[in-house]
């Protein structure tokens, strides 16, 4: 076995799941699973395989089929470029958090009205939203549950920004 092989005890079980899902979902999903395998085998997510992130990727795949007006109003469908960029961003974020030894929390995944992908993490007192389109990756931090609470925004595209946002959200 390669020294970079996955160390998680569920690795063999995951392989079985991979084969099952591959048969069910078709060739587009295989690429995603291959990407997963590369991350896991490269040690980026060693021992930290997470079923919730799997669901995030499945939701992103589902969003490729959304059409304009998906929210019952005139929201634009998420673009392919936004979805692909969001997929890379969330995998990167996951690997960075896993490698730092911190606990991963699954975001709510949806789209925004201009074709962006939206990741949202919430607690009772905090809300972190990430908006990703082909041009930019930005965040909104909402610092309280009440109406009129302070909100800040900025760039979320870099590893440093991701690290600082996660530290803020989980502190």
């Amino acid at each position, binding site marked *: 076995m390669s020294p970079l092989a996955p160390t998680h005890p569920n690795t063999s079980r995951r392989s079985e799941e991979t084969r099952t899902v591959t048969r069910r979902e078709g060739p587009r999903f295989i690429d995603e699973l291959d990407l997963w395998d590369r991350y896991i085998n490269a040690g980026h997510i060693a021992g930290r395989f997470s079923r919730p992130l799997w669901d995030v990727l499945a939701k992103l795949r589902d969003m490729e089929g959304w059409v304009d007006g998906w*929210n019952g109003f*005139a929201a634009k469908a998420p673009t392919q470029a936004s979805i692909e960029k969001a997929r890379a961003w969330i995998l990167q974020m996951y690997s960075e958090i896993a490698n730092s030894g911190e606990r991963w929390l699954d975001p709510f995944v949806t789209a925004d009205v201009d074709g962006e992908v939206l990741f949202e993490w919430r607690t009772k007192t905090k809300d972190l939203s990430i*908006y990703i389109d082909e041009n930019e990756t*930005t965040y909104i931090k909402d610092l309280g549950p009440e109406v009129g609470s302070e909100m800040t925004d900025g760039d979320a595209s870099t590893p440093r920004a991701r690290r600082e946002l996660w530290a803020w959200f989980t502190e």
Partner: protein
Amino acid sequence: MFDSELLYRLVPDARDNYKLEANGTCRVTQSAFGDGPTDKKGPRQPSVYRARLCGFEPSAVQRHATEFVVALKAEDVRRISTTLGREVNVVPDTEDHPAHALVVSDPPYMDKDPKFRKLRKQLAKAANSNWVIGPPKHC
């Protein structure tokens, strides 16, 4: 319009306009306030209906029986001004419906203005999952 005036907001039964939270509540999301972009050029102004002018009957504003409705107060909408750094207000817009009103801002949110997201997030909080028709059984 008085601060105490109750407003209704239509929530189409569409994906991700609501979400089941860990505590069992069904939360209305910012997607549910995602009016536009539309072919009609101009500022983005989420629609609401004045409950008093609907006889406090939320079903009066439904376009389809499948739509849900949440309630919020005019004062909560106006309070959003403090965090956005621009005046947010509710003004009547009776061209299509006598109870119809718009959430407007000064300066206005124009096409693809990312700051419009903050307004929608705050509106979702103002509604605070105050379902008057709903919540969806399948939330």
